[in-house]
């Protein structure tokens, strides 16, 4: 039915599209191994200096002629990574509980404010990061709350609850309500039905929502940027700061590691999903 030339053109365009998406990432990876620190775009030779530099394995000298331009501080970077992981762990837990509970309430109960809740739960996700970020900043400062890891977790939970809500809601929509009726029919109370039938059925959706929440929390820049204060910085904010102070070859190394980590996480997510389908 399709004309072959049209299809070939479409295929060509689509493949270029994927090149557009992935080429920039390969540029970073490629140049993270380039030894030329002055113009990173001119290939000199293969090196692991920028990686070893990241981990403080190489003696670094504060000498402008030295190859290893000093990266802020390995300790700072490790601390930022730790903060990111801690924040993401807490955020994921809280947002998953809040989002799942609300999704169940909206899908399985009829009540007067249902329509309102549906819109309200979407709003944090749709609100531009910067508005939410400065709103939280003013709120915390007005309340006299010290900006810290706690405020970051709170900030992340607001919009990630939305994400989990949407993922879990989509999953519930695919579950036959007759399952819960069957459970009630067989003598299980509302609470037992929730625990023994609905939650196990929802598990893949909840897991998916949690994974998404974790990944977005790890990656959030804007909101964290406003409410992280001086003490605790997350990895994206740390890298943002480095980039603003100028391009350094070590950033390529960090960026490559982050790309690697995200590919691993995405593959794990995919694997989880494919395992759930049987």
């Amino acid at each position, binding site marked *: 039915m399709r004309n072959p030339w049209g299809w070939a053109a479409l295929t060509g*365009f689509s493949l270029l599209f994927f090149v557009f*998406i992935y080429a920039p990432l390969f540029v970073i990876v490629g140049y993270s191994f380039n030894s030329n620190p002055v113009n990173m775009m001119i290939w000199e030779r293969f090196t692991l200096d920028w990686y070893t530099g990241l981990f403080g394995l190489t003696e670094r000298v504060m000498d402008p002629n030295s190859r290893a331009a000093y990266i802020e501080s390995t300790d700072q970077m490790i601390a930022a990574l730790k903060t990111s992981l801690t924040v993401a762990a807490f955020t994921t837990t809280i947002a998953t509980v809040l989002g799942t*509970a609300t999704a169940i309430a909206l899908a399985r109960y009829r009540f007067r404010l249902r329509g309102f809740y549906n819109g309200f*739960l979407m709003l944090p996700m749709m609100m531009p990061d*910067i508005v939410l970020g*400065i709103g939280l900043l*003013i*709120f915390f400062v007005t309340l006299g709350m010290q900006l810290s890891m706690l405020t970051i977790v709170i900030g992340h939970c607001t919009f990630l609850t939305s994400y989990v809500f949407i993922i879990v809601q989509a999953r519930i929509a695919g579950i036959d309500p007759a399952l819960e009726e069957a459970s009630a029919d067989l003598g299980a109370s509302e609470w037992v039905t929730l625990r023994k039938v609905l939650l196990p059925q929802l598990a893949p959706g909840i897991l998916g929502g949690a994974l998404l929440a974790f990944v977005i929390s790890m990656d959030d820049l804007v909101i964290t940027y406003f409410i992280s204060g001086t003490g605790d910085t997350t990895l994206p904010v740390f890298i943002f700061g480095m980039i603003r102070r100028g391009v350094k070859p070590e950033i390529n190394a960090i960026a490559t590691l982050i790309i690697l980590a995200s590919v691993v996480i*995405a593959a794990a997510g*995919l694997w989880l999903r494919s395992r759930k389908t049987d």
Partner: protein
Amino acid sequence: MAIRRQSAILGLLLAPATLFLGVFFLLPLLIIALFSFLTPGLYGGVEWSFYHWNYGRIFGWADGIMEVFEPVYLRILWRSLSFAALTVLVTLLLCYPVAFWVSRLPERSRLFFLFLITLPFFSSLIVRLYAWLLILKPTGFLNSALMGLGLIAQPLEILYTPTAVVLGMVYVMVPFMFLPLYAAVDNLDRAQVEASMDLGANRVQTFLKVVLPQTLPGIMGGAVIVFIPSVGNFIVPDILGGAKGLMIGNLVEQQFLSARNWPFGSALSMVIMSVVLTVLLVAVTRARKTGAGHA
């Protein structure tokens, strides 16, 4: 639908999120609204008195003593809106053919390319933008490559221009446009396309009369999802845009982190928020109408 009594469990399920979002989402938004009408203090901070010149500075009324109307703010607002609109347009034009292509692939390769599209969701925004910084720099990948090939003599100046900003936004927003589009295209009943051609419509007519109307909800969905984060974006212009690429998000950031004029920053945020809420409202009412029409 099952009957459910409004039980204690319903309360238990709703209370945590209600409480949490009420305090940490609604209150902060209300506080922005409040701050946007307060008087900026001389050395940062606020005075708790009513003050409407924050908006005056943006929209054209100013007392001329304390605050002056600066048309630059309206220009930057206009630029933000047009950059966001342009981002929507470009992502749409890029994604629509690809969504079509992917939906027509055999199962295995379809899943593979869908995976490739979703992968950027998992990878870092800041890293992806940084890549473009490397590529667009005067001594960057693009210029090195083009000059190496002898295509240009002088490095192109793309970085720190509006082009770079829109390019960057397109790059980070592409998956958000792609997924709703793909869902719409994939939902399309292929037999309807064949029926249209069978009834004598050519490819263009079939596209305009059958395919486009039925994928419109996906297009609208993608447009909203891309437009909203674009209009208030400050990271992309911060990294890739110069003075000419400045957007309203950058203004807000400046007011909070360097100028320390929180009330004015709040007023600017209120402007972003109203744009976003307007877009959402229009989208939702439209979706309701067409949804009712289709049902």
